[in-house]
C-alpha cells in the first residue's frame, strides 16, 4: 500500500472520520474503531447516530461483500470483532438514552450441533445491524429455546444447523412451538450450509437465510412487516 502515513483519526472531520471507520471496519481494526467511536461521542454525536451512521453503515458494506463472495468468513469475523469493540462502548449509552430498538433475536445452534461459526456470524451481523441478540450458543434442546423465548420475548427465533444429522431437529423445535400455540408469536429464521429455501418451508420456518448478510436483510424486512401489522 502506498499510504504509509499514519492517519490521525482526531484530525479528520466528521464525514472523513465516518468514511475512515467504514474502511477500518472492513479491515477489522478494533482499536481504531473504539478510538473513532469515542471521538464521535466527544463531538456530541448521539450514541444512536454513531451506531447507525458509522457502525451499521460500515457493517452493511462488509455484509454486501460477504454476500457477493468478495469477503469470506475470516475477514467478516475480524470486522465483526471490531464492530463489537465499538458496540461495547455504545451499549450502556444506548440503553441510558432510550434509543429506538430495531428488534430482538434469540439464536442458537440446535441439539447435537456444535458448529457455531455460521451462527456467530449471524449474531454479529445482526448486532451490526442494530438488533439486540441473545445467543444461546451450541447444542440447544427444544427446552432451551422455549425458556429463552418466554424470558426474552424476542421478535425473532434463529436456528442454525451445519450437519445433515442435526438439520431435522429444527423441525422438532418448530413443531413444539406449534403444539404450544406460540409459533405465530415469533419470526422463525433458519440457516446452515446443508439447508435451502425448500427445506425451510417444509419444516415451517418463515424463511431460510443463505448467509449472515441475507439473515440481516430478511430480519429487517420481516420485523418491519410485523410492526406494520401491529400498527395497522
Amino acid at each position: 500500500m502506498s499510504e504509509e502515513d499514519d492517519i490521525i483519526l482526531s484530525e479528520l472531520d466528521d464525514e472523513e472520520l465516518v468514511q475512515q471507520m467504514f474502511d477500518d471496519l472492513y479491515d477489522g481494526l478494533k482499536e481504531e474503531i473504539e478510538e473513532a467511536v469515542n471521538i464521535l461521542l466527544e463531538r456530541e454525536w448521539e450514541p444512536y447516530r454513531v451506531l447507525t451512521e458509522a457502525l451499521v453503515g460500515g457493517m452493511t458494506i462488509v455484509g454486501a461483500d460477504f454476500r457477493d463472495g468478495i469477503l469470506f468468513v475470516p475477514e467478516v469475523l475480524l470486522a465483526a470483532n471490531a464492530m463489537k469493540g465499538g458496540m461495547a462502548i455504545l451499549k450502556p449509552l444506548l440503553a441510558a438514552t432510550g434509543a429506538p430498538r430495531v428488534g430482538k433475536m434469540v439464536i442458537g445452534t440446535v441439539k447435537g450441533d456444535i458448529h457455531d461459526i455460521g451462527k456467530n456470524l449471524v449474531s454479529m451481523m445482526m448486532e451490526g445491524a442494530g438488533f439486540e441478540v441473545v445467543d444461546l450458543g451450541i447444542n440447544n434442546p427444544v427446552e432451551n429455546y422455549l425458556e429463552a423465548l418466554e424470558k426474552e420475548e424476542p421478535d425473532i427465533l434463529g436456528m442454525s444447523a451445519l450437519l445433515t444429522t442435526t438439520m431435522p431437529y429444527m423441525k422438532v423445535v418448530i413443531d413444539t412451538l406449534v403444539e404450544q400455540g406460540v409459533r405465530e408469536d415469533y419470526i422463525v429464521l433458519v440457516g446452515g450450509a446443508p439447508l435451502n429455501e425448500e427445506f425451510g418451508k417444509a419444516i415451517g420456518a418463515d424463511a431460510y437465510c443463505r448467509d449472515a448478510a441475507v439473515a440481516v436483510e430478511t430480519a429487517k424486512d420481516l420485523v418491519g412487516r410485523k410492526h406494520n401489522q401491529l400498527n395497522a
Partner: protein
Amino acid sequence: MSNALSKMLTSRDWIMADGATGTNLFNMGLSSGDAPELWNEQEPAKIKKLYSLAVDNGSDLFLTNSFGGNSARLKLHDAGHRARELSRMAAELGRDVADAAGRDVIVAGSVGPTGEIMQPVGALSHADAVEIFHEQAEGLKEGGADVLWLETISAPEEYRAAAEAFALADMPWVGTMSFDTAGRTMMGMTSQDMVQMVESLPNPPLGYGANCGTGASDLLRTVLGFAAQGTERPIVAKGNAGIPKYVDGHIHYDGTPELMGEYAVMARDCGATIIGGCCGTMPEHLNAMRKALETRDRGPRPTLDQITSVLGPFSSAGDGTGDDEPATPARRNRRRRS
C-alpha cells in the same frame, strides 16, 4: 509405499469410495442430535451393516464412523475424553468388514473438522489442533485403519494441523475440503489455493480433493480446478447426491441413482481417481455409480456446460479462480497496524 491405498493406486486407474454415513444412519434409527460415534460401542452391528452396504454395492474403500470422533466434537456429548477409543472402535469394526470382503477393501479412518475456528481469527491454537487430531489418529491406527481420511475441512490452518498430526501418528492419509461458498471453502480457499497448499506440505497426502459442498455440479467444477493445476497427485471427488429436501420427517437428497452414475463417470473424466458420494448417497446410488464406472468408457474432460446440462446448474457464477470474478474493490487507504 507399503500401505493398501498406495498399492491399489498403482494397480487401478480409478477407485470407488463410499457414500453417506449420516443419511444411512438416520435410516437405521439414529436420532437427530445424537453422536453417531457412540454407536460404535452401542450399536456395532448397525455400524458394520453401514460399512457392508458400501462394500456390497461396489465400494473399494469406505470411511469409518468417526467423522465427529475428535475430542472437540465429542465433548458436546460429554464424551470428549473418549475420542481415542471411539475412533479405535470405528476402525476395528471396519477392519472386520474389510477383511471379510473377499477382495481388497480399504478402511479409511474418517477425521472431520474440530468445529472450532483457528487462531488468529478464532481461539483454537495450532498446537491444540494438532493434539486433537493426533489423539484421534492414534485411535484409528490402533483399530486397524489402512489410511486416515480428513474431510469437510474449510480452513487451510486446520488442514495443515491435521497433516502434522498424521505425521506424528506415522500414517498415510488423504484429505478433502468442502467448497460450499461461491466455489470456495467457507474460509475463502479456492481449488487452486488448495493444490498449492497440499504440494507445500512436508508430508503430503496420497490424494486430495473435495467432498460435500453444495451439489454434484459444483463439486465437479472444483475437480476441474484441481486438474487444471496439472499435478500428478490423485484427486478425490465425493459429492452429495443432489440437494437436501425434507420429506415425511426425513432428509432426502434429490439426486437419483442414475444421476449419480453420470456424476461418477463425469468425475473420472474431470480427472478424479478416487470417486464416491457424500450426503444422500445411499447403497442404490453406489450400485449405479459402480456399474457406470465399470461399463462406460472414459471420455474427454467435460466442459462446464456439459456438467450443468447433465447434473444441473451451479450454485454460484464462478469458483473464485477465474478472471470473471467480482474484483475486490479498491480500498481508499487500507491501513496496517504499525
